[in-house]
């Protein structure tokens, strides 16, 4: 298996200017190294506030690190220009968030299609592939419904569908089932695993849930801004 993503000595320090005049830098990531194989499902575990989301955002190019690099297919994405990075997020990455983060003014179909429109793909082709994706996530009959008219599980399915529109190589999911009940979570996870299985998408999953983590191919722990022993499970 080839190396899809390689994170090298990643640092992230927040300079919090909002508290008082004296800025107190918060060092969240203190040299993170991870390698992710193509087609793998990786779980990132860690206590709340340890920097899991921060790491995921840096891997996905949503934010810039203080230092260190993220290689995607051996290219350092943080050496890219902002525009190139936007394009990278658009085409190579699919984000799934804890709260679905769908766009309330757009229908389910449009929410899925919008990534294709951002990429300036052919409009009708984009909508027809959005329809296929809607079928894949099992909500083809809700295509003209707005997010406010969907249940939590359905919204998360749409959010997963949205991540797929440009056939990204990697899906970054930040506690995708955090807001859902057990049964719905299970359905969503099945869908994600199916993505990995049938579509061979690489999946990086941030979670609190050890049970869920057990199902993944590999687990990494973040403790105090660093990755600890990759197979050891620390009780939290």
């Amino acid at each position, binding site marked *: 298996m080839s190396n899809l993503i390689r994170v090298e000595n990643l640092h992230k320090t927040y300079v919090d200017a909002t508290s008082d005049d004296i800025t107190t830098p918060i060092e969240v990531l203190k040299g993170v190294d991870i390698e992710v194989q193509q087609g793998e499902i990786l779980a990132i575990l860690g206590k709340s506030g340890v920097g899991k989301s921060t790491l995921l*955002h840096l891997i*996905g190019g*949503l*934010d810039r690190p203080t230092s260190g690099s993220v290689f995607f297919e051996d290219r350092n994405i943080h050496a890219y220009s*902002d*525009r190139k990075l*936007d*394009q*990278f*997020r*658009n*085409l190579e*990455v699919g*984000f799934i*968030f804890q709260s679905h*983060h*769908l*766009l*309330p*003014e*757009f229908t389910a179909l*449009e929410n899925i299609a*919008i*990534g294709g*429109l*951002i*990429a*300036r793909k052919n*409009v009708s082709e984009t909508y027809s592939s959005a329809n296929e994706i809607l079928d894949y996530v099992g909500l083809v009959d809700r295509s003209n419904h*707005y997010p*406010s008219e969907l249940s939590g599980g359905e919204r998360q399915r749409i959010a997963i569908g*949205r991540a797929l529109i440009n056939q990204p190589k990697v899906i970054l999911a930040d506690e995708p089932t955090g807001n859902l009940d057990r049964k719905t979570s299970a359905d969503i996870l099945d869908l994600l695993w199916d993505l990995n299985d049938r579509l061979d998408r690489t999946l990086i999953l941030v979670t609190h849930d050890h049970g869920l983590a057990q199902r993944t191919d590999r687990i990494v722990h973040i403790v105090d801004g660093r990755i600890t022993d990759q197979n050891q499970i620390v009780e939290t």
Partner: protein
Amino acid sequence: MGLTRILYSFEWLVSSRYLRSRRKQSFISIISLISVGGVAIGIATVILVISVMNGFEQSLKDKFLINQAHVNVRSTKGYFNNYQEQIDKIQGIAGVVSASPVIYSQLAIQPKRSKRIEGTIYIKGIDPILENDVTGFSGFVDGSFDFHDSALLEDVRHRSSQRETIKGGIVLGSSVASRLDINRGDVLRLISKMEPNPANPSTFFADVSNFVVIGLYESGMFAYDNAFGFISLEIAQDLYNQKNHINLIQVRTTTPEIASTIANKIRREIKFSNSGLYSVPRTSTWVESHAALFEAIQLEKLVTVIIEALIILVASFNIASTLIMMVMEKTREIGILRSMGSSKMKILIIFVLQGCIIGFLGIVLGSALGIGICVLLALEVVRPSRWFALLIFVPIFLQVAIALHQTIRRSRSLKFAISLLWLGIIAFVLYCLVQPIQINSEVYQLNRLAVKIDWFFVGVINFSSFFICLLATLYPAWQASKLNPVEALRYE
């Protein structure tokens, strides 16, 4: 190609959707509606006010021009002789249509019935035929303008006593006539000078001549109708003892615009001989005669344009604050779009587009409203009764009914029909209510508010307003584009 690309683009989709915003955010869509209204009202007033001022200026010009010479030529020293030669010379200048000799002065008047002098009027001694070529004189006279040989004149001569000699006929300004209660056929005395009585130097002889009012002059310009009288040139020369002399040559040019060029030519080419000396004539064009008025109008226009520019500016501030609110409201969505890979530029364009849509709609609506009202103000058609304007309640009732029955809100075609109904009814109400406005002719020289739409100005206003709206979008759009996506996603 370019346009369809915009219409199908991601940026267009998002910005137009945000403007129409659903439910929870219907607050925003009302605000954007208000912004559209602000721009529309600004544009409509600009167009309306400027059109009315243009109309006013134009109809004043038209009025001045129908009964006025384009250029007046005077000697620097009163009367001058062999005028025929000068007139021939002036008529030889390219651009001159015709020229006419006039004796022009102010005389005291006294109606025969009255015991006292009733003020003074300007008396023009004219050759009616030549005068007509320059000022269109005959078109304004009600009655006769044959100063020497008129049936009225004969009639009066028969009726009056032998001692009263009738000098000739006079065409009197209609407002003078009605002010003094004089009709055609009445006798008017003109007092041309006073001479000391040789027998008793503390008293004076008045040099009084009797004229029969043979016609009334009505141009519609109060300043003229209330101040002028016309008599024959020869009689006037006789009255002032100025045989073969005149003191004014009136000139008509091919178009009023070239008046000042022609005036310059006349000053260069004509020399009046005046008691042996040659002098350059004094000229004044029709614009110069009314310089104060036209300058005042010009200044007023300038001030209006400045005020209107401020209105548009306020409207654009409205757009800016709408967008700033929109950016705040949509912060999380901006984060989502950024996470999906839309660039800062795309976010910027989304908000610029929203502002431009607001500006464009406002400009189109405002122009339609402004131009519509202008057209209605100028339209001489009998309107339906103003009571019909109450039809405005029909769409209001419908909207209330729909608001009460939320169930039909889904029906797009119904919504569309209601909007059309609104437009139609508002147009009809305006049609009923907006009518030509009568104004006081003694104050304004005109008896009807004229409207003239300057299309070039409308174009300029539309363009510059759109540009101002575009500028107003830049700050909020830039704010939106520089949001940090991670923080925006975190935003509650």
